[in-house]
């Protein structure tokens, strides 16, 4: 049975980006949010350290300094006008959240307090600056709660535990809506809509050790890619330096912002050698590579693949008030008392800089000319504006989702107000139903979990912090085999209600397709920049590679690459030193 709905604006995903867009769109046009989770389960809630805006509440600061740091931190692959716009609008975005009740930590005179964060500096790199607005180490939790609270106040319509499986494009390549699967009943729903905004979050589950939730499987990007739309800059993936050893659970950069340091087996604060000016607060890609290098040179703790994060020298009250949650993570998951012992950490796959290409109004754009797909939008980690370039600075993801969430929600509402209802193709749900039928009735000689284990293992080994031609070409072969095995995956559960096994198998399909683009783009880019490090091509090469990659799916399933220029601005690319 198929149920039909008609909306002006459909938002897919209920994290910060989706909720902020919903608040903007729902006051103007008939809007709904489709989420595969209850909204408050979204992974925005796991963000810890802060959201940067040059409020200047505790020391001198300007949006222009913030923009410079963002562009330099992104290794000059950032589209500069977009970053400048984001850093300007950051201030209003923070104030708006405060007016909606966000419980920011405060200065003694009652203003929003601010703290240091990686890569954020005073006057173009002089020293770390206090720019991150925060609520202890649960800033993302408070953003998610605050936005959800406002959605309740505004009576936003939610379809919770609905999985979006496909995007409907009309014959003239406009957005027509989405196909969704209702987890509770196993029913298919056709959402006919003038506009759709993908805010599905990240795809960190392509890797084995990751800070990402189990549900971060790249649904939005994979769906767009299958419908012939490009994905931008997929080779750039951020490994956060401080994940809990073996588990990948995030320990916020705020720990280093508050004075925590990294030490190797010799007790040396090794970041002094790699980034003499800002040391432990260098951008994440540099710190993660430094940890990799220390381990490779035998200075991992006990000769193993981890180093220590040390906060023993900090005031216990600072730890208790400003980083209580991550301290508790160390106690629970490692049995380590950070007040007395250093915490074992290793880099963890954290954030995809790439995604569905958009402009600053969150419109999905195709090709080097950036032609918008009418009615189609994307915001947040699943999108690529690009404000993060080759490496995102800490806190800028929370900023990205609220700034571009608002812009996208407003633009889609304006579009829907003037656009005609889309003419849908006949049986738009057919492809999605076929996909599910294949998984339910297929040979079932492979288990999704086995294929996923192999994918995550190989992606981590061959497409992680350090990459090379040999590994990437081998990995492309492995991905081919994994796609073949995926064809033979079947599910044991044939029940209709809460068939989470079926949805996990669908998500594995998304992960495989996203991995194809990550590996193809990483293999083609024979230079090193930001989060993409090729040991066989260790230098950044602006002459050849100051371009964004676009990955398209060809008919035969292979990835076709295309490139478009980076939009430069006032900042001339220079060597990135800290």
């Amino acid at each position, binding site marked *: 049975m198929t149920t039909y709905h008609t909306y002006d604006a459909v938002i897919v995903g209920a994290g910060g980006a989706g909720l902020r867009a919903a608040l903007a769109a729902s006051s103007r046009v008939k809007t709904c949010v489709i989420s595969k*989770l*209850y909204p*408050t*389960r979204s*992974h925005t*809630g*796991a963000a810890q350290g802060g959201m940067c805006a040059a409020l200047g509440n505790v020391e001198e600061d300007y949006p222009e300094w913030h923009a410079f740091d963002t562009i330099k931190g992104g290794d000059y692959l950032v589209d500069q006008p977009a970053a400048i716009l984001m850093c300007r609008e950051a201030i209003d975005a*923070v*104030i708006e959240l*405060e*007016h*909606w*009740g966000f*419980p*920011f*930590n*405060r200065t003694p*005179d*009652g*203003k*929003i307090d601010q703290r240091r964060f990686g890569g954020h500096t005073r006057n173009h790199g002089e020293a770390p600056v206090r720019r991150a607005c925060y609520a202890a180490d*649960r800033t993302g*939790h*408070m953003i998610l*709660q605050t936005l959800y*609270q*406002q959605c*309740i106040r505004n009576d936003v319509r939610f379809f919770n535990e609905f999985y979006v499986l496909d995007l409907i494009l009309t014959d003239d390549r406009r957005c027509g809506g989405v196909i969704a699967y209702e987890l*509770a009943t196993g029913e298919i729903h056709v959402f006919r809509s003038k506009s759709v905004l993908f805010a599905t979050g990240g795809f960190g589950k392509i890797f084995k050790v990751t800070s990402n*939730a*189990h*549900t971060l499987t790249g649904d939005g990007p994979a769906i767009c890619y299958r419908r012939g739309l490009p994905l931008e800059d997929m080779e750039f993936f951020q490994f956060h330096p401080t994940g809990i050893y*073996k*588990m990948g*659970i995030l320990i916020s950069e705020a720990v280093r912002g508050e004075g925590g340091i990294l030490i190797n087996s010799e007790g040396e604060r090794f970041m002094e050698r790699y980034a003499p000016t800002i040391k432990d607060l260098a951008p994440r890609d540099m710190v993660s590579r430094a940890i990799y290098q220390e381990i490779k040179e035998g200075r991992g703790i006990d000769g193993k693949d981890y180093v220590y994060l040390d906060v023993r020298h900090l005031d216990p009250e600072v730890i208790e008030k400003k980083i209580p*949650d991550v301290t*508790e*993570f160390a106690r*629970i*998951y*490692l*049995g380590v008392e950070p007040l007395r012992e250093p915490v074992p950490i290793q880099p963890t796959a954290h954030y995809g800089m790439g995604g569905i290409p958009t402009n600053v109004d969150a419109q999905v754009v195709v090709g080097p000319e950036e032609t918008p797909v009418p009615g189609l939008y994307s915001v947040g980690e699943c999108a690529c504006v690009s404000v993060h370039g080759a490496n995102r600075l800490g806190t800028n993801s929370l900023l990205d989702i609220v700034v571009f969430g608002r812009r996208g929600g407003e633009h889609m509402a304006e579009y829907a107000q003037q656009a005609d209802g889309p003419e849908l193709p006949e049986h738009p749900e057919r492809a999605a*139903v076929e996909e*599910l*039928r294949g998984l*339910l009735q297929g040979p079932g000689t492979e*288990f*999704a*979990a086995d294929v996923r284990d192999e994918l995550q293992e190989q992606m981590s080994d061959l497409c992680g912090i350090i990459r090379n031609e040999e590994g990437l070409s081998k990995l492309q072969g492995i991905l081919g085999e994994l796609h073949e095995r995926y064809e033979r995956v079947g*599910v*044991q*559960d*044939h*029940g*209709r*209600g*809460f*068939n*989470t*096994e079926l949805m996990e198998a669908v998500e594995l399909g998304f992960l495989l397709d996203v991995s194809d683009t990550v590996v193809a783009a990483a293999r083609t880019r024979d230079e090193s920049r930001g989060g993409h490090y090729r040991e066989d091509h260790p230098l950044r090469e602006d002459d050849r590679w100051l371009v964004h990659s676009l990955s398209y799916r060809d008919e035969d399933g292979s990835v076709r690459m295309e490139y478009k220029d980076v939009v430069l601005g006032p900042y001339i690319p220079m060597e990135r030193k800290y």
Partner: protein
Amino acid sequence: MWEEGPPREPGARPRAEAPAPGQIALSMRIRRYRPDIDREAWWQEATVNMEPSDRLLDALHQVKWYLDGSLALRRSCAHGVCGSDAMVINGRNALACKVLVRDVAPKVTIEPIRGLRVLKDLVVDMEPFFAGYRRILPFLINDEEPPERERRQSPAERERYDDTTKCILCAACTTSCPIFWGDDEYIGPAAIVNAHRFIFDSRDEGAAERLDVLADRTGVFRCRTVFNCTEACPRGIKVTKAIQEVKRAIMFDRL
């Protein structure tokens, strides 16, 4: 896409290996109920080999991914911040991702949280829970025109409601409450916690409206200070204390 008639009984995959050195063989008893095929709830027994430092959620995944795909549970972040995987673990409410194997080995019993209808296995109907949350007007109420910059709030004023901002709406507190089990009209601890978060926020002016909701017969005075909620809270919120503060506000302050 779906077959006619009742779905097939899922086939299990044998995976009986001895635990590797350092691993623990964990015997799990899991409460199962699949409305499509089960006439009543039953216990599934499974043994999985785990690292002592693994989460109980990892053990449930071992069952789901490698033994019996039909096991249904909710989970997402896997480190205690999203609130998806509250369950009854050895008789007490907890998040499966915040309990380690070493804390429960060699045997563990896992059931769905109580007081909400079981939809399948460990998945319960959360709608009544969220309906209670919505009743207390969980958003900042202040009709004054806001200033151009932030509203001022002193660190002490901010501290006043800090504890209750931590709530992740996992329902561990509400579904540990014997009053809630016996009376599903009781609004429950989680809704009161979220009311507290706004009632004691110096920027909020909606206290009277919320206290009206909570003073009613489904509100705070049903609480008998059993403290189950405080013990169950995976975020360490002093839930019973928050409820007492709301009771006092109704009786004495009316803020």
